[in-house]
């Protein structure tokens, strides 16, 4: 009797998981499907066509926006990941007077309404006479990405054994070498998920980007936002489909790193 009960729970669990994933992916199937739709309006599926993909590549402003987004997303992700990771290590290891303040400040970007953070940053940039452009965009994106990197890396640092660092120093590695040879590799999964989160946030932001960008540096989300405002037409769907495929490949590449290490472990155990 106990066996079947466990089986039921297991299948229920599987079924539930599949339903949730379906729920998550339903609209994405629709978006991808309508990217091949013939009619201009995303209402009814009339015919199959690749027209929108072609049309999309001609749209130079779209490509330029995509270029800007890639630069901003990558630079802001790298900067916020670097500052966030070493910051998390610092916050994990050391106590200092203003620690309470920094910890509370860490939550502000998560909660502050985007429109007001955007305006406040714009006021600061103009007060500092900084010309609005890719640089100010990157600075703004780093500002709201850092907390997420710090949270994920700190979560990873939770189970970190400090004597491993001491062992490395004991064996002749200076502090910097220890960081790169020992600390960083161990907390890498935390750093990667922090970076992925920062990348996601940067590629989805519209309101803060609107206020902190200059005339020549519109980003893709802003472009999509304006296209959507005039009624979603299939070329937006086509664009989103391409981005989706792009991000899936990046995710598989980075995460597969973990999968292969797992495989090595399994192989390793067999060898013994």
């Amino acid at each position: 009797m106990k066996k079947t009960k466990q089986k039921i729970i297991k299948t229920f669990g599987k079924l539930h998981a599949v339903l949730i994933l379906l729920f998550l992916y339903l609209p994405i199937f629709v978006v991808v499907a309508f990217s091949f739709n013939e009619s201009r309006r995303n209402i009814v599926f009339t015919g199959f066509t690749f027209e929108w993909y072609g049309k999309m590549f001609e749209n130079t402003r779209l490509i330029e926006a995509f270029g800007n987004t890639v630069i901003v997303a990558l630079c802001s992700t790298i900067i916020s990941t670097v500052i966030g990771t070493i910051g998390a290590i610092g916050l994990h290891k050391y106590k200092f007077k203003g620690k309470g303040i920094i910890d509370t400040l860490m939550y502000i970007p998560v909660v502050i309404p985007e429109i007001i953070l955007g305006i406040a940053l714009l006021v600061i940039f103009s007060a500092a006479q900084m010309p609005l452009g890719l640089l100010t965009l990157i600075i703004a994106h780093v500002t709201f990405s850092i907390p997420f990197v710090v949270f994920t890396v700190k979560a990873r640092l939770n189970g970190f054994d400090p004597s491993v660092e001491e062992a490395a120093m004991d064996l002749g590695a200076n502090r910097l070498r220890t960081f790169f040879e020992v600390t960083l590799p161990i907390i890498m999964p935390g750093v990667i998920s922090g970076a992925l989160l920062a990348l996601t946030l940067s590629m989805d932001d519209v309101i803060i980007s609107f206020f902190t960008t200059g005339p020549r540096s519109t980003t893709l989300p802003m472009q999509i936002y304006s296209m959507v405002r005039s009624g979603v037409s299939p070329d937006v769907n086509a664009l989103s489909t391409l981005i989706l495929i792009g991000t899936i490949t990046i995710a598989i590449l980075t995460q597969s790193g973990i999968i292969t290490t797992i495989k090595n472990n399994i192989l390793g155990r067999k060898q013994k």
Partner: protein
Amino acid sequence: MKPMVEIKNVNKKYGENHVVKDMNFTIYDGEFLTMLGPSGCGKTTTLRMIAGFEEPTGGSILVEGESIEEKEPYDRNVNTVFQSYALFPHKTIYDNIAFGLKMKKVKKPEIKERVTEMLSMVQLEGFEKRMPSQLSGGQKQRVAIARALINRPKVLLLDEPLGALDLKLRKQMQIELKRLQKKLGITFVYVTHDQEEALTMSDRIAIMNGGVLEQLGTPDDIYEHPKSKFVADFIGESNVLEAIVASIEDEKLILNTETGKVIGKNADFQKDEVVCISVRPEKIRFSETEVKGFSLAGVVKEHIYVGSFVKSIVVLPNGHEIKINRLAGDSLPPVASVTHLYWDINQITVMHSKEHQNYMLIQNIDLGGYQ
């Protein structure tokens, strides 16, 4: 013998918590010295100060005559084996062991050769490609030692390396460590709270308590002649009695303990001074009648058979229990009978006692109907 490590009035304070108080001792080249003491006695802190993970608030540490307390851990010709092994979880065993050499930019072929040699020394041939998570406790511990020794350090520091192993494996590792130390001739500084381990492995033991060096000496010197009540208590089992010097007859001391007179060996004690006597359980003998000079008697509470010998407990009138170990087969007074205790004065130690006032307090208790 050339001094290898010199600790010169080293102090360490964490805020007001004075962890190491004015430590002074020397470790000689090729010696196996153990720092022994209860947890929190400052032994690990001292070790970490030699390794460079902590900086002394005062005093200096010299290795081969050169002061190193200002130096970074990676600039010191010293290596450490950690209690938690601290192997690099993301590197293979080969990379773990080769780490030190890689830092010294040793050429690849030489690294390969020395690592293979070290692996055979610790009986881990063929484990190069393994990950630390795939090894047992003993294997991990041996990799940690190999990783430290491969750099041919002047001094090897071991921070309770056998703590996590089971009894049988620990015994085996104790012997292996001793053999390795003798073979390589490297100075070992070993930290443990397990006194039996210290006694079996060390050339010399430094007993520490509350940040103070109680005694430094060979294992038998410490066992036979503990300098303080703490050392006597801490090393092996010991009966410690407080007494007052009634009179001195050339090298004999007539001592009044709370429940009777005993005799001890004189070593510059004054009359009426309060002293502590430390008597090893195997050194006390029973007697039907009172032996000359001794008036210590008590009721036999129980005899416990412990493999090769018998542990007996005798309760003195003031409730103090005396432990006596006799070889199995010796004649023993029956339980609940009164017996007289005596010993050979050369086999016990008399010590100056700090708790002087305490004795005065209990002197005039009426012993009442002693039967």
